């Protein structure tokens, strides 16, 4: 077993791992499609396609460089770690140029200038000025420039940092927030969708977005800057902004281009329209159907991850349980320590360490492998306790009897003890498997696009957390059903008490 195991492991993973390596001739760019409009989102009309002004910029730059743009999904706040890890070579996703970030990555020259905008409920007339925010609950995106501005507000502002922009405006609608401060493009797209909200005209702060490149990647940086210069000169960049309804005074000033807009904001209009014709039930259902392929893809990733992880978790759990029960004290203590360590620390952090931490010591795993390792280690620790309890639940006299019949300890374990313990451990194992199915959503921090991540992207694109949420929940539920079935079958198969002798049957 010891020799075959790693080979089997690698075989398994390489078959299932979907992440391909960088190919020549591509511009690998990272972003987060759950971020939403107008930056980067799943096309509400065709959710299998990503759109957004940054998608167009990425493609325009790639064209300038004679490359093919290739998009890599990652969670927004992990975009820079992913860049350092060389998952992709540039990041274009509304990353504000700040001093802290400059210490970590190289920034291109700004490709977009904007400002922060306040959104409030229509009937609010207490908030107009910056000073009015004192004592109010104000929502923003975590780690964003807007959030930092709020935190530096002299009056006591209760700042709520969110992961996803769309939920912030929803909370404002539900009166959980008094105001939202976010970059103007976001306010433009989301702050105006709900008729009960209004965007205030006042501008706050200055924001500039830059394209991130790894430190020291000067050649790529130069090429990107050149490309941006060309796109600016040719008016192509401006055309993108105009079509997305993003051309503003700030850009006009910075890019020395005072001419009035002349293009129709077609993309902005299309986005707004995509909401209007789903208001009735029928068209909504039709629309949900277009989500199914994408959700199914996510569900398959979730299922693959969970099954492979559980397979290894079961093996590891069994090994740990046996070591803890029968190995010499020192080795058993190591197993105990391992179990405690793994159980006592959050899975999220473990995944993060495995994926982003290990490359520092030269171990660079692809996301699928890292996810499997993280989940299998974790669940292996939990399983081991279940197996240990199951084995301990079998009376000692069964072991003694087996030994008296001439079986050795291993034979007694595998032929007598474990078959009896299975019946005891199957229900809690099923529990764990279902919980693993859902915990697997945590792996989106390491760039995997599984079901929950797809949900986030679809919800952001459609601004419909409720409907997409129910669809996703149903999918999780349905995925769990076969395992519950299997578990019942195993339980019945091993429940000798309820067995009828063949002669009676």
């Amino acid at each position: 077993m010891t020799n075959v195991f790693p080979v089997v492991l690698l075989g398994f993973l390489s078959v299932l791992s979907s992440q391909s390596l960088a190919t020549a001739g591509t511009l690998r760019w990272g972003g987060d499609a759950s971020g939403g409009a107008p930056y980067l989102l799943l096309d509400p009309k065709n959710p299998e396609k990503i759109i957004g002004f940054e998608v167009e910029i990425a493609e325009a730059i790639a064209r300038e460089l004679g490359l093919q743009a290739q998009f890599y999904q990652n969670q927004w706040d992990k975009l820079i770690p992913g860049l350092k890890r060389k998952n992709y070579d540039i990041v274009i996703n509304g990353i504000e140029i700040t001093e802290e970030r400059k210490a970590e990555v190289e920034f291109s020259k700004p490709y977009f200038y904007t400002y922060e905008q306040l959104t409030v409920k229509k009937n609010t007339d207490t908030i107009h000025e910056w000073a009015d925010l004192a004592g109010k609950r104000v929502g923003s995106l975590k780690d964003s420039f807007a959030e930092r501005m709020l935190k530096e507000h002299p009056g006591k502002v209760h700042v709520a940092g969110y992961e996803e922009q769309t939920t912030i405006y929803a909370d404002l609608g539900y009166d959980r927030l008094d105001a939202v401060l976010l970059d103007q493009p976001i306010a433009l797209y989301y702050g105006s969708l709900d008729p009960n909200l209004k965007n205030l005209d006042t501008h706050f702060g200055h924001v500039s977005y830059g394209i991130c490149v790894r430190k020291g990647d000067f050649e790529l940086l130069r090429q990107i800057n050149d490309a941006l210069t060309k796109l600016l000169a040719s008016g192509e960049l401006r055309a993108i902004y105009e079509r997305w309804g993003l051309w503003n005074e700030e850009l006009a000033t910075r890019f020395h281009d005072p001419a009035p807009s002349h293009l129709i904001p077609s993309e902005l209009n299309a986005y707004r329209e995509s909401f209007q014709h789903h208001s009735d039930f029928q068209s909504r259902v039709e629309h949900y159907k277009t989500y199914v392929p994408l959700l199914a893809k996510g569900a398959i990733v979730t299922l693959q991850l969970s099954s492979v992880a559980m397979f290894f978790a079961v093996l590891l759990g069994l090994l740990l349980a046996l070591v803890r029960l029968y190995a010499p004290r020192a080795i058993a203590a190591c197993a105990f320590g391992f179990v405690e360590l793994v159980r006592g620390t959050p899975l999220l952090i473990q995944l993060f360490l495995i994926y982003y931490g290990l490359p520092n010591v030269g171990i660079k795993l692809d996301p699928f492998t890292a996810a499997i390792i993280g989940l299998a280690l974790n669940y292996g620790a939990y399983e081991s306790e279940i197996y240990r309890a199951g084995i301990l639940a079998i009376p000692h006299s069964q072991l003694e009897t087996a030994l008296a019949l001439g079986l050795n300890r291993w034979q007694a374990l595998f032929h007598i003890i474990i078959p009896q313990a299975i019946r005891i451990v199957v229900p809690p194992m099923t529990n764990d498997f279902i919980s693993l199915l859902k915990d697997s959503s945590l792996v989106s921090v390491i760039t995997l696009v599984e079901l929950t991540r797809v949900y986030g992207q679809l919800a952001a694109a459609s601004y419909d957390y409720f409907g997409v949420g129910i669809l996703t929940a149903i999918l999780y539920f349905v995925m769990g059903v076969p395992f519950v079935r299997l578990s019942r079958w195993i339980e019945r198969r091993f429940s000798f008490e309820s067995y009828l002798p063949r002669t009676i049957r």
Partner: protein
Amino acid sequence: MPHTLTPHIDVRNLDKTYKNKSVLKKVCLDFFEGELTAVIGRSGCGKSTLLKCLNGLERIDSGSIRVGNVFLDRNADQKHEERTSALRRNFGMVFQGFNLFPHLTILENLIKAPMVVKKLRRSEASAIAIPLLEKVGLLSHIDYYPSQLSGGQQQRAAIARALAMAPKVMLYDEPTSALDPWLSDEVFAVMRQIAAERMTQIVVTHELRFVREFADKVIFIEDGEVVEIGSPTELFEAPQDERTRRFLKR
């Protein structure tokens, strides 16, 4: 009673201690081929421990056990494990609580050890098991699970299971304590049948009625010491030791 001069099993100065508690003290015993020896004594005097030491389920602290040409002492060299299992192959053991494997049918209970230990094929093991089940009167219960049998049936199955490994000596630890008198008789009947085939048997029991009638020899133990050894007549009619007399009087 005629028997060979060298005993089948001899136990010399056997000591067994559990955490400073001396459970068997300098026990010396001979068991002869084909004899049924009964071991009697108060609860906690060390009877079960003696049986477990005999078949190597418990390690001995000093002294020695010899069965045929297998010799075992405290010595824990590399061969110890090997010798323990060689010793154990001589014995079949029957427990007070039957200890059938609940997840296996009666037939599977019998063929498991021959298949796993002796690597017999299922058919070969069954060919051994089925006559044994017939002998203990359980042929019609081959496919039952242990939980579907009465206590007496379970204990007879357990005896057959031990016999399926073709031991030279049978050890019984209070085989009938969990059974009512009628069911006990079923089990004793099987043991008598085995005695008739001249197999060496050692029985720990509180059933003095059975001991009187069928044992070839009786050993009385108190507080881990062998107090008296004799034929049932000698021990029951004319006990030599005061402690034996006190035990029998109750």
